[in-house]
């Protein structure tokens, strides 16, 4: 006989963990008890040592799905000889570290009930259990109990109450427990926000969808705008009403069979599609997929597909007989998803013909996550619903509670406590008032929920990011640390992989404020969390009109041509002669033309030179189209380029400069001879691969590190990421790419936190 006392911290409350422990202990013939305590659970078990070992092993290896164990400690205790195993009432002891569960897709058990005519929750759109359902989006305060969620207004019926209190029930302490007798209900509103009498809101909404109408549907983290994905007219109308340029729209399909009809996927992609997080997964679009061209226009070879993740979605997909539905967040572009009922009615008026809503309030808005698989591993694009606020491990623990504020676009923030980094959901473009307000509110909300009061603030070095402005607005006595943008990108990828040693950081990006005041974005850094050396960068060119140049790639083409001394014409650049004259003067006089080393802008220039669009409707569009063109074309020769040590008044060890003038001259010449854009696109990718390889090899020759991290928004480009990895691996570098957070600015806050922690420690 042995007795062990076990302390577990992590997401182990309200996720069916105690029933699981109960079952495990009884199955192994162990006696003792389990009880909730702040931040985790305490277990004491007694029995023969072999069973105790098995108990510990199984406890940590197969906990119920939303549970996540962050730490286990155990110690021997003298046996008491008590009979049986029991669940004890929660202990109200001192506060421990708090963890929160993300929202979890409807589990298989609940799905069976949903479609079982004999079940009392048959066709009930709000069923859930301790293993699934809303979490983060309905919590007002911690500890996580029903009265502190948006379910507080719904009094449990006797049936629900007895399930909730039965330790052997799947719904034991499932806070959002509900049934048709006591829980939330669907309602139907007109496009004007006024209630519509409906005996069956779900089937009325579905039949409107079937007639090609646009319906707003209140989901888990906000309102989606939906229409038939196969209906060209409906999709065009949705884009028109939403003023949504050309960004691809996501499609929800009923199940994996339907997903297969739209896109190709392998085992990893299947697992990602069906994971409890249920992200939108970018699949290779199947030729002849029954989806309107307008869903992802511009020759996009991929399609964003997701599976239903709430009972309401499952029922809706059934009602529309499985027809794939466009599901895009219900908001003007670049603003966070509409979530508040009054606000949604106002914002969606004029966009939706009908609004399918319900009376369970969303407390925290949360956009869908977006992800994909590259080389057999997940490569996140947006980490949001279903993933946040699961902590990510930091390589160096935070000495003090720390808040990292992220960037400007695709904003996320992160709270650090010890070795845990809690990254927020996606908050969008902070230039938008709605987004900024949501950002500021969410910071306060997460600080309260996780009980983290920051004693250090880390922000981007850029003086004009709204996140930097937010940092300035916090009390002046709170210490602030400004981190260079690309250093944070590099650290973000390092942190994910637990690297804490010098690395080569290849950060290819749109823009970031550099130490010299220039706009960086094509950087190869050497260093770690504590500091870095800018080992190489693209040659600076002018960015005529600043951010304007990002939306008008022809400007970057004009700028690169001028730098390379190659003549250009308005016709070639598809600009008016007057525009070109102004832009040339701006470049010549360096007027409103900040210097940049951005790879994103080089992509833009090459895209424009190759004959792709001279103007884009969202940042990065030209670069994506160049990637699509190049994908599937056989590898080809690279264009010429040069690498020089920057001379002059710089200190010794001045950075290498990657000179793209030969590349630009060659691209211009090829385009002039009428070379196919796809060939130019392919060769350009190969050129970037060679640039990186040559710089890394030269740096290794100078005893530089042999580990390389790839970060920055350009590495959303799968072709480039894959080829650089392959090339460097052949040269015996160890290459690391993002697996947990996006390579773009959505992952910035993690890097800031890692740097903040390391600097704070030293």
């Amino acid at each position, binding site marked *: 006989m042995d007795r062990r006392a076990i302390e577990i911290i992590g997401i182990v409350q309200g996720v069916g963990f105690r029933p699981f422990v109960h079952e495990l202990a009884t199955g192994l013939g162990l006696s003792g008890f389990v009880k909730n305590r702040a931040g985790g659970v305490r277990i004491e078990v007694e029995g023969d040592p072999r069973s105790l070992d098995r108990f510990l092993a199984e406890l940590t290896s197969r906990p119920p799905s939303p549970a996540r164990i962050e730490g286990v400690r155990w110690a021997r205790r003298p046996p008491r000889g008590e009979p049986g195993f029991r669940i004890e009432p929660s202990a109200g002891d001192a506060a421990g570290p708090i963890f929160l569960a993300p929202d979890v897709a409807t589990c298989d058990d609940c799905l069976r009930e949903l479609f079982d005519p004999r079940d009392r929750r048959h066709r009930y759109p709000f069923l859930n259990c301790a293993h699934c359902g809303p979490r983060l989006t309905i919590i007002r305060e911690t500890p996580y109990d029903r009265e502190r969620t948006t379910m507080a207004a719904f009094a449990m019926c006797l049936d629900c109450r007895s399930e909730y209190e039965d330790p052997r029930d799947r719904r034991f302490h499932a806070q959002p427990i509900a049934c048709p007798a006591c829980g939330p209900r669907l309602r139907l509103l007109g496009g004007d926000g006024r209630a519509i009498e409906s005996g069956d809101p779900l089937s009325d909404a579905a039949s409107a969808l079937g007639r090609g109408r646009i319906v707003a549907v209140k989901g888990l983290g906000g309102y989606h705008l939906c229409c038939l994905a196969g209906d060209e007219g409906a999709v065009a109308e949705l884009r028109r009403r939403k003023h949504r340029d050309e960004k691809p729209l996501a499609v929800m399909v009923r199940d994996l069979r339907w997903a297969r009809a739209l896109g190709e996927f392998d085992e990893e992609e299947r697992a990602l599609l069906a994971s409890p997080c249920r992200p939108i997964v970018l699949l290779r679009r199947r030729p002849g997929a029954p989806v309107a061209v307008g869903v992802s226009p511009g020759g996009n070879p991929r399609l964003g597909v997701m599976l239903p993740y709430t009972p309401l979605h499952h029922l809706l997909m059934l009602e529309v007989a499985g027809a794939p539905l466009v599901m895009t967040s219900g908001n003007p572009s670049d603003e966070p998803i509409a979530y508040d009922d009054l606000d949604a009615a106002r914002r969606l008026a004029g966009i939706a013909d009908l609004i399918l809503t319900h009376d369970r309030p969303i407390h925290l808005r949360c956009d869908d996550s977006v992800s994909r698989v590259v080389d057999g591993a997940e490569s996140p694009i947006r980490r949001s619903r279903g993933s946040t606020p699961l902590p990510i491990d930091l390589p160096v623990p935070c000495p003090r509670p720390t808040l990292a504020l992220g960037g400007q676009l*695709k904003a996320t923030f992160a709270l650090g406590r010890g070795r845990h980094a809690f990254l927020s959901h996606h908050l969008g473009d902070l230039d938008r008032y709605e987004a900024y307000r949501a950002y500021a509110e969410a910071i306060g909300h997460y600080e309260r929920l996780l009980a983290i009061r920051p004693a250090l603030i880390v922000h981007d070095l850029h003086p004009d990011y709204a996140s930097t402005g937010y940092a300035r607005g916090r009390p002046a006595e709170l210490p602030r640390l400004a981190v260079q943008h690309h250093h944070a990108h590099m650290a973000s990828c390092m942190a994910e992989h637990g690297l804490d040693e010098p690395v080569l950081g290849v950060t290819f990006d749109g823009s970031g404020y550099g130490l010299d005041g220039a706009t960086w974005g094509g950087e190869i850094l050497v260093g770690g969390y504590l500091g870095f050396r800018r080992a190489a960068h693209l040659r600076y060119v002018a960015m005529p009109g600043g951010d304007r140049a990002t939306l008008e790639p022809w400007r970057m083409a004009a700028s690169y041509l001028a730098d390379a001394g190659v003549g250009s014409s308005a016709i070639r650049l598809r600009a008016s002669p007057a525009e070109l004259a102004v832009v040339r003067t701006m470049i010549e006089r360096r007027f409103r033309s900040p210097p940049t080393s951005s790879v994103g802008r080089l992509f833009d220039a090459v895209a424009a030179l190759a004959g792709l669009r001279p103007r884009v409707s969202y940042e990065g569009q030209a670069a994506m189209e160049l990637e699509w063109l190049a994908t599937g074309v056989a590898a080809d020769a690279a264009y010429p380029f040069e690498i020089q040590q920057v001379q002059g008044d710089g200190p010794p060890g001045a950075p290498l400069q990657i000179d793209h003038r030969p590349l630009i001259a060659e691209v211009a010449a090829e385009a002039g001879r009428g070379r196919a854009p796809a060939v130019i696109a392919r060769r350009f990718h190969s050129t970037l691969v060679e640039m990186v390889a040559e710089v890394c090899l030269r740096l290794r020759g100078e005893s530089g590190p042999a580990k390389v991290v790839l970060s920055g928004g350009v590495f959303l480009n799968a072709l480039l990421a894959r080829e650089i990895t392959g090339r460097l691996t052949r040269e015996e570098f160890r290459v690391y790419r993002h697996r947990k957070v996006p390579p773009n600015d959505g992952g910035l806050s993690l890097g800031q936190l890692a740097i903040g922690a390391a600097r704070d420690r030293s």
Partner: protein
Amino acid sequence: LGHGGGGRATADLIGRLFVPAFGNEVLAALEDQATVRLPGGDGVPAPRIAISTDAFVVRPLFFPGGDIGRLAVHGTINDLVVGGAEPLYLAAAFILEEGLALDDLGRIVASMRDSCAEAGVILVAGDTKVVDRGKGDGVYITTTGVGLAPEGRSLSIRDARPGDRILVSGTIGDHGIAIMSVREGIEFETALESDTAPLGGLVRAMLGACPGIRAMRDPTRGGVSAALNELAAASRVGVTLLEGSIPVRPEVRGACEMLGLDPLDVANEGKLLAVSPPEDADALLAAMRSHPLGRDAAIIGRVVAEHPGMVTLRSVVGGERIVSMLSGEQLPRIC
């Protein structure tokens, strides 16, 4: 020391260095002009006067619609009139660069004389210094204005209240774009002129029609966005502008697009912003429009209780953007 584009860097400098150094309430109010009371006594009431000073470093010295001399007169008296004062006297200091053509200086002085006459002020004191060649851009002028601040009249950027309307006296951005285009040799399709003008007459007409005006500002350097951000901060209120209602000449809009500028950030020299109680806004607008310098006046937004200290712009297609006070340098943010 960084560049002083009239943005946040300048505001920071003032707040961190100058205000504490001279620590007094009048300066700390950060109005465009200071209102002080001279000592009275012996049955003589203490008069209230307004003082303002401004330095002018414009390049080129002569530009379509004006020159540095006109600007130096208008800039200072406009700061006085938007505070509700009647400008009376002006003093001017000139820093001349060796080699400046006497002819040019003559033209500048004549232009100043005409501008003073037009605005009804008298230049009563002056000073000149000459610096070595290469140490100045031809000429720098600093002017100081003194005016009478009528009893009982108080216009202050701290007085805006939720519900108030924001009015602008005409098209924005004309001056800044005109200057840039001549200075940088950029030829836009239509030639633009600076809007520099003395605003005393317009302000008199406005105060006559609507004595309840809460505040006025001339949105010079830093443009409408800097002026309204200061107002929002000083009054602890929010400001929301309506995109479609802001008068901008098409050629200015076109130029801004080319240069990657927001018209809200571009300097004006003959325009003012006014904050009015909601019930007076229409009468005020009518009074402005019947004055030649206010023909294109418009109500462009309102003061709100939400987002204190912040200015937003509601777009025509929905969605609201933050109009921030930037650091003053052009730093791309799209990543």
